[in-house]
């Protein structure tokens, strides 16, 4: 009798294990869904990616050209060539000091990109940490996480940048830290809502029953689920960082005067907007191109993420 019972137990356990294995393998990992037949949504995402990368390629190609073909200095003035409209010598024309706008616009690109990457690095890593903790553990962690995010969200990002500049003076580092802090809540929300959603799923409960540690569940099982969403948020954050940084530069705060940024070029151009509209349009269009490209990529990723969460 006893023996029989034991046997039965064993069988049951085996069945349970099988069940667990099945469920775990059925968990909708990103890879799983990726190899499914391409649907209409996939097609839509593909188009978005193409447009996005094409837009991002424009400033990049111009930048590469500028690396090899750079007949003008960024800051040397040439009073005989003031307000030249765009032609073959000056692709984007010249400004009030006769400086070549093409060269200046292109030399502003690396700084913009470095600042945006820095901002998103801070925002994303802290957002991942805070959002992950509050999403996974809930309770009081979640409550205070939410309050901090509420507090940060109620200060416009540019004001935070100004506060930092007022306190610590101008500088690239200040801009990165200030805006990086302001970008935490958006990442936090993405991670938190993703974790909240998947934490309830059966495959996580099974893993907990199996004795998997929280760190293991978070890193190996929850994080992959939100990876696409997070990438979409990063693309969006990149766009928003460019917008915020250029706004600060436009106000003449933030990046020190010696550096060229598009926001500052626009601010300068505003003074002679009707004599030389190109001097405003060139840096403005650069911002728009980069931002729009990031938007498209973000939207494409969002579509993929939505489709996968349905899978």
């Amino acid at each position, binding site marked *: 009798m006893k023996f029989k019972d034991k046997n039965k137990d064993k069988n049951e356990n085996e069945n349970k294990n099988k069940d667990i294995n099945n469920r775990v393998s059925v968990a909708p990992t990103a890879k799983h869904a990726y190899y499914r037949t391409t649907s209409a949504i996939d097609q839509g995402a593909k188009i978005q990616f193409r447009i996005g990368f094409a837009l991002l390629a424009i400033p990049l190609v111009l930048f590469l050209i500028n690396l090899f073909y750079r007949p003008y200095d960024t800051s040397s003035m040439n009073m005989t060539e003031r307000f030249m409209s765009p032609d073959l010598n000056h692709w984007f024309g010249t400004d009030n000091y006769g400086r070549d706008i093409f060269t200046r616009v292109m030399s502003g690109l690396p700084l913009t990109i470095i600042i945006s990457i820095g901002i998103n690095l801070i925002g994303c890593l802290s957002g991942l940490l805070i959002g992950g903790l509050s999403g996974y553990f809930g309770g009081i962690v979640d409550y205070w996480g939410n309050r901090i995010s509420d507090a940060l969200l109620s200060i416009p990002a540019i004001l935070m940048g*100004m506060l930092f500049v007022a306190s610590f003076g101008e500088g690239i580092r200040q801009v990165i830290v200030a805006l990086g802090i302001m970008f935490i809540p958006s990442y936090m929300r993405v991670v938190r809502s993703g974790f909240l959603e998947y934490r309830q799923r059966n495959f996580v409960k099974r893993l907990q029953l199996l004795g998997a540690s929280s760190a293991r569940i978070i890193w190996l099982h929850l994080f992959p689920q939100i990876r696409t969403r997070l990438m979409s948020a990063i693309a969006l954050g990149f766009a928003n960082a460019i917008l915020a940084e250029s706004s600060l530069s436009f106000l003449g705060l933030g990046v020190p005067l010696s550096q060229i940024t598009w926001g500052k070029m626009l601010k300068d151009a505003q003074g002679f907007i009707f004599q030389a509209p190109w001097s405003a349009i060139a840096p403005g269009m650069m911002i728009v191109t980069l931002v729009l490209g990031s938007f498209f990529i973000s939207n494409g990723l969002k579509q993929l993420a939505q489709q996968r969460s349905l899978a």
Partner: protein
Amino acid sequence: MARYILKKAGQMLITLLLIILLVFIMFELIPGNPARIMLGMNAGDEQVAALEAELGINDPLPLKIKNYIVGLVQGDLGRSIRFDKPVNELIGEAAPATFSLAIYAFILIVVISVPLALLAANKQGSILDNSIRFITEMTLAIPPFFMAIILMLIFRTTQLSLSPGQSNLSSAGFLRQFLMPALAVALSRVAMALEFLRDAVVGQKKMFYTKTAIGKGASKSRIIFFHVFRNSLVPFVTVLGLILAEVFSGSIIIEQVFLLPGLGRLLVTAVEARDFPLTQGIIILIAVIVIIVNFLVDFINQFIDPRLRLSDVKSGKSHFGLKLGYKLKFRGDAER
């Protein structure tokens, strides 16, 4: 309901405290003596000491915060260093320009986005829908100050003298005068509002109750306005609350472009002069406005959607943006 309001008000206060804390910690972290930084290198030691005493710089942080909050409750935000005037007086002078610009822009956002969103959602997937969405996506990528420059170029070259230049708030042509700056602030945010409303309407149109309405014999316009639009309002109102914060920051920048004597100009001056009490005052004012608006948004949403009232009180969970309304479970009583 009363309990819910109290709870929300409590959360509001916590958020406000956190903001004040943040601003003060920033103060603490300033390298060197803030008073000396404010006064510049030429100031004498007595001057620095006097300012230190006035600002209470050597007080411990909790005391500073306590003093500030007591002042805040009494409507006293301290004294500006740069202008040597009470901060609230300065804000009182500058606020009307910013507020009227922000409100004007906000109204423009609603007026532009609602009809366009309904148009787009009505013919979902059509050329009209796609072009509306594409164009607004474009405007989302244009920062407000660049939009202002584009508008300047457009309006000037078409001989429409809409630029306010040195504006005068009491003038009767306010709407005409402020149209261009308000548009510059509004256009880049229209896309956000529009997208949310359109998606909500498209989602609601698929809901089964629209079929019930057709079964009742309701006309198309009745279904859209009486049922679908109303049910799409919760996410829309929520996103409008978020947009308001951005409208404020947009207004601050646009003031620079059009040289409007508003909070933005004041803030830039304050930052450049390192006038901490003034900077602090303006930032906290705007944060308070944003917090209050979000509180109102919650309140309005409860008014629109009865399910939110129930779940919030019952579950005791704060409702996080717009997610809740659509994942609610229905409470079923036992059949009597």
